[in-house]
């Protein structure tokens, strides 16, 4: 593909969208129970865990990435531990690594807004669902999630957008392998580093337009759901 006479590699774009999508989904799956657990925690320890969830943000991404590659290295404890369960295979320098890194770093973006939404749930409405025989999972998906929708939306949007722009962690854990783990953010960075500014601009603008479209789609979908259901 060519844009304005410059060659354009679509591989990183597709990879980025794939990683951002998978990360958002994985984080929804992991973050939702964590958010629920925190929102319903009555103990004082809750303040501690709330702060803990925000911590991945505090380290510079490359440093976090550095610690991650130490933790995930093939001879490391984690890898050895996983081997006991028959899970072998490289955790870094591939898509798995990209996703692990993004998931760890974006965890707060998913958990915090969803937790805030869970806290604001109107208890009486959830109670009403219980009296209509809705079991926990039933009412969770049919009542709680719709009521907390704005929180989920914020969580997903921040996670998705942030993963698209993620750079430091991805760079370390992914290894910037062309065609495998080179995301758009790394590609843009490479261009800037090598003073190929025009290519960097084109890729940046493309990425902005593309992300804009994805976000407009997400917000539009949200609006639709809102109108449809009430």
């Amino acid at each position, binding site marked *: 593909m060519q844009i304005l006479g410059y060659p354009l590699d679509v591989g990183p774009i597709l990879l980025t969208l794939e990683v951002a999508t998978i990360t958002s989904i994985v984080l929804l799956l992991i973050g939702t129970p964590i958010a629920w657990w925190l929102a319903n925690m009555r103990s004082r320890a809750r303040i501690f865990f709330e702060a803990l969830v925000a911590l991945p943000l505090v380290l510079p991404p490359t440093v976090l990435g550095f610690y991650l590659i130490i933790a995930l290295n093939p001879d490391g404890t984690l890898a050895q531990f996983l081997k006991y369960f028959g899970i072998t295979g490289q955790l870094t320098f591939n898509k798995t690594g990209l996703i692990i890194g993004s998931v760890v770093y974006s965890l707060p973006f998913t958990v915090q807004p969803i937790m805030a939404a869970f806290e604001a749930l109107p208890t*009486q409405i959830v*109670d*009403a669902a*219980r009296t*209509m*025989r809705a079991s926990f999972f039933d009412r969770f998906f*049919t009542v709680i999630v719709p009521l907390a929708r704005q929180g989920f939306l914020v969580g997903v949007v921040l996670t998705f957008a942030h993963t698209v722009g993620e750079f430091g962690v991805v760079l370390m854990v992914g290894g910037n392998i062309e065609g495998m783990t080179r995301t758009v953010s790394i590609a843009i960075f490479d261009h800037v580093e090598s003073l190929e500014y025009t290519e960097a601009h084109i890729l940046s603008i493309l990425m902005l337009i593309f992300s804009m479209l994805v976000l407009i789609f997400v917000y539009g979908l949200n609006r639709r759901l809102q109108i449809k*259901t*009430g």
Partner: protein
Amino acid sequence: MFQGNLQLKLGNFALDSGEFAFESSGVTVLFGRSGSGKSTLLRAMSGLDKQSHGELRFNDEVWQSGKKALPVEQRDIGFVFQTAALLPNKNVQGNLDFAIKRIPKHRQHGPSTQEIIERVGISHLLNRPVDNLSGGERQRVAIARALLTRPRLLMMDEPLSALDWRAKSELLLLIESVIADYQIPTLYITHAPIEVERLANRVVFMADGKITSIESLGDATSRIDSPLFTEEGPVSVLHGQLGDIDPDGLIAFQSRQQPGSDSAFTFWLNRTEHSNPHASGAQARLRVLARDVAIALHRPEGISMLNQIPATISQIEAEPPTQRQVVFLALADGQTLLAELSRRSVQRLGLAIGQTVFALVKTAALLDR
């Protein structure tokens, strides 16, 4: 049978029901002043309040034992909340469907969905988002939703207070007939004595978080200091059966009698527009306010009151603060009718225990079931 003993602490408020046991059949009304703990007890009995502990059995099932409780969603209850608690992300139909979808196969009995929707009067609202409903409309949707769950037990927290009188009487009739036809035991909170007298089989009186007494409706209305008696004063509830409608539009209400023998007395009732079509011979209740009952020494002539019922004075009690006198009148079939008179009238007529008099009750002052 409903029995148990529930405790719950909410901040400064302590609910402590004490040991209680009552028939679950029919309608049990929780009655007490604002803040006495009615809603709290109802929630605790429903299992919605996780902090509550103690014992609770519904018929043969253990619903609560210590801190262990059967989850609400397995109790088959229908609940109408004091605030409607509709699902805000759904429209009216969606709220009803939520309940309908979750009915177990073996509990499909009861009136059809269509019938409930029509009788609750929400068929024109089905496509409305619930945010757009008026106060009364919300409450009606909540009632329909609870009935549609096909509950084994219905719990209602002031379901009718947001409604106008017409909706109120329509829905009272609906609730009455549904729980009677389908034998759904009901726990019901209301501040309106008229709802108690129409619906209740028994009354659980509450004060300060405690159950002060559990009485049958008859007992609850046959003492003049009953908490049920409010600005309307004492009330008698008479049991009997209905006769035919005569050409003047009057219905006979006859005292309960051994079959074959004549009725001991007859009240003539006006057919009111909002009542059920009457089945002749149907059991009915008559609600008579004591202040609507006058006493005559002799059967009066040239007077519009049709109901002139012979009775014997069994007791005369004074209500100290107001100087009003409550005269207990024993009717021929043994039921008691209360009359509330001024002290001046009692003295002027020289009323005394054992005297035979006529109770005068204005036709139009009677309410039918």
